[in-house]
């Protein structure tokens, strides 16, 4: 299995509070992704990174920001969490855009 960890694995927070999720990889892959999974929607891309300090938006990026200061870490931040951001968040990595994406274990976030 690819060496991908996510922290925390579960989080409950209140509306309006900031939340940061962390994805850490030990594979030295260039590309990292954040997805959210909601019932009836499959997985949808939030943001992705193609290198240190290089990021781009996905299809559901509103309300989220990301940062990548090191190859191994990709952070997802909800500046002011809303109930619509209650979801399961997955990080994924790949060596290139043509390569298979491998997923972390996911973080379940509940915003009350």
């Amino acid at each position, binding site marked *: 299995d690819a060496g991908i960890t996510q922290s925390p694995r579960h989080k409950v927070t209140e509306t309006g509070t900031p939340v940061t999720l962390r994805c850490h990889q030990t594979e030295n892959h260039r590309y990292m992704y954040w997805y959210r999974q909601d019932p009836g929607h*499959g997985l949808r891309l939030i943001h992705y990174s193609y290198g240190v300090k290089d990021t781009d938006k996905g299809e559901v990026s509103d309300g989220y920001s990301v940062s990548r200061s090191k190859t191994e870490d990709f952070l997802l931040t909800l500046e002011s969490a809303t109930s619509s951001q209650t979801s399961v968040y997955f990080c994924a990595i790949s060596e290139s*855009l043509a390569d298979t994406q491998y997923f972390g*274990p996911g973080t379940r976030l509940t915003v009350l």
Partner: protein
Amino acid sequence: AQTVTQSQPEMSVQEAETVTLSCTYDTSENNYYLFWYKQPPSRQMILVIRQEAYKQQNATENRFSVNFQKAAKSFSLKISDSQLGDTAMYFCAFMRPPGSQGNLIFGKGTKLSVKP
């Protein structure tokens, strides 16, 4: 925009039997990649199989095989000799070719139950 459709929200199969999960997609691209991922109750997303659109030969991985029909834009997954551990959500996914925004477009999934 590319879309992926899985028309079977739920399916069940008896242990040791064969089951086929359907997936269709819509794209104007000629080169792309297709995937099946499995998500068991543990929630982990696990790669099952990958197919490159330029390859005519259908991909196989042990008991898992695909029927890739490029003209029909169809990509079904066949699971032979079903096992209880195959119980999971199965997601079909489409990936644009390199040079495009690098992301997977997922279908909504098919929940497969393998019954003893």
